[in-house]
């Protein structure tokens, strides 16, 4: 057993007079959602493995305000945003990685208007960089070699920010057989959780959006469905359960696939 991984907070680093290369913005789902906490931990393991000096905010992190803004409560959004910006600026943060596309979008596109200017990347982009540069090596004949995987574009990474290729390149690098759903990339169908829908019952209709999406995913006959967003992960997992396929089809975050496949 190797030495335990230490996840430092910005406060701890600052006390030692140090600063990280990159700040890992965990997000509320990454902090509290049982399933996504595992993704958070996995990403820490990857960062540790490749030797990137990173830190988290720990209890100093607040919600970015994304759901408040999208539910129309601009006051609440700005309260959250401005207090987060105060914290980030106090620590002189330059670069942020996050595993949540909603946080990614808000930090990258919306915080600059309120005085928060950072280089923000999504974890799928970081994973692609690490694999491309050879810092993270993927096993020959890893667990996903030749497996049929379908990739779900989250709206906030895809359409909202035009990141379509980085996650796909990562999947390709696992030697997996990437099978696209009928609606993908620019036309990818939402999982149903965006715009604060995650937190309320949907309006009346014929069907839930995640069921529509999972049916489309199942048409590709995948062995696993790959997501890049905590909300998509919940919605798609629920969809698979609804179709009683949870034993044969797993829903993963991209970081988990990479961790299982690395040398």
């Amino acid at each position, binding site marked *: 057993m190797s030495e335990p*991984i230490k*996840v430092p907070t910005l406060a701890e680093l600052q006390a030692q007079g140090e600063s990280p290369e990159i700040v890992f913005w965990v997000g*509320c789902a990454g*902090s*509290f959602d049982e399933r996504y*906490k*595992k993704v*958070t*931990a996995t990403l*820490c*393991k990857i960062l540790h493995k490749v030797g990137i000096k990173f830190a988290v905010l*720990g*209890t100093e*992190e*607040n*919600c970015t305000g994304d*759901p*408040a*803004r*999208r*539910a*129309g*409560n*601009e*006051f*609440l959004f*700005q*309260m*959250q945003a*401005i207090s987060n910006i105060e914290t980030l600026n106090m620590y002189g943060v330059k670069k942020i990685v996050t595993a949540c596309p909603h946080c990614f*979008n808000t930090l990258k*596109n*919306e915080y600059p*208007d309120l005085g928060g200017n950072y280089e923000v990347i999504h974890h799928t982009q970081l994973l692609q960089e690490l694999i491309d540069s050879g810092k993270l090596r993927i096993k020959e004949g890893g667990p996903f070699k030749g497996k049929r995987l379908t990739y779900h574009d989250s*709206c*906030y990474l895809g*359409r*909202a*920010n035009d990141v379509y290729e980085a996650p796909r390149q990562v999947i390709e690098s696992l030697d997996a057989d990437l099978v696209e759903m009928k609606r993908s990339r*620019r*036309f990818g*169908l*939402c999982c*149903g*959780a*965006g*715009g*604060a829908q*995650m*937190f*309320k*019952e*949907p*309006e*009346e*209709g*014929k*069907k839930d*959006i995640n069921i*529509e999406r999972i049916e489309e995913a199942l048409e590709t006959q995948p062995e696993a469905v790959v997501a890049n967003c905590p909300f998509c992960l919940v919605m798609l997992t629920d969809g698979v359960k609804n179709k009683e396929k949870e034993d044969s089809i797993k829903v993963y975050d991209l970081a988990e696939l990479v961790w299982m496949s690395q040398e």
Partner: protein
Amino acid sequence: MSYLPQILFVLCLSIAGFFIYKRVNFIRKAILLGKKKSVNDRKSERLRHMLLLAFGQKKMFDKPLVGVMHFIIYAGFLIINIEVLEIVLDGITGAHRLFAPYLGEAYSWLINLFELFAVGVIVTCVIFLIRRNVLKLPRFWSAEMKKWPRLDANLILIFEITLMWFFLSMNAADSILQSRGVEHYVQVGSFWFSQWLQPLFANMQTSSLVFYERFAWWFHILGILGFAIYITYSKHLHIALAFPNTYFASLEPKGKIPNMDEVTKEVKIALGLAQADDSPAPERFGAKDVTDLNWIQLMNAFSCTECGRCTANCPANITGKKLSPRKIMMDTRDRAEEFVRQLEQGKAIEEIKSEKSLYGDYITKEEIMACTTCNACVEACPVSINPLSIILDIRRYVAMEAGDTPNEWNVVFNNLETSMSPWKFPPTDRFNWVELVNKD
């Protein structure tokens, strides 16, 4: 030689010009009901965006076959306008085929090209009519596409077919008259496509032929003038507004929601980061009526040709919810028109606003709350219309003015205020996930 036809023609031209002017002015007023927003940044990027999307119709080719067909109608429209210029000049001067002597050989080629496009337009319009009325594409038959919107679409196609038919049959009759050596009909020969129509007219007497040729000429040009007026009342307005609409569209990443600076000021005061000053608070947060939207959002509404690509891609709509982004645009346009009509009847703005509003009377809460902000509608629109920005502005009104957000969201707001997370977990537990890092 009688000048009567020329006088009549100029009169028709002026009347059409007058009606178009009046109607354009009306639309201009409707768009300017919106709040001011100045856009004069990134000019070359905007120009490029406009050239790609409006002039080059880039997004229409997301569906390649339809893209090609639409391009034929569009190119036909642009190119046949050169012919219309000749027709107008002929009408004013009393000449016939005014350009022929100047262009020589090239003239026939030009007319042949026009005819090629005319045939292309007819074929395409027939296919489009079949798609709408026989194949019944779902996006042309959804809830908001009843009565006028459905009729409007069919009328436009029938109009275009009729105009092209009279153009082609006019040329056929003209060619026969030339071959009979009738005075006034300049010798330019037969044309590629209309020559196949000549048998229809071959047995007619010269006088009847002249009558038909003149009738077709008048019908073609009056039809075009009539169509030009019609367009200003129709969804077909996109042929003009697609250009400014794509030019003024947001160039920011689609996920970015514009900041409300008026809120920033108040939040900074509340957090003790800024001093209160005397500048007045904004009249309203978010949008309840068209006057709360900005002019670009209202121009969006008038640019919409109701193609329904937004609605066909909307996850809420696909799964049977009431929300249809196209309806949001149609409602916004209808309300803006209604608003100007009432203004013109002499009603005061406050009175108009108190009687009805966009949110409530046109757009319901159920529609607004069903949106996942996924941007599928924005991505799908060939002319950069943004239904999401209107939906969000109305949500802002619902949350900050009406205080009418769904209860589950009020809980989220509460949690955010007290626990800094949408879920009610103690903030001190936020870092507990770290225990998992060294497990297994």
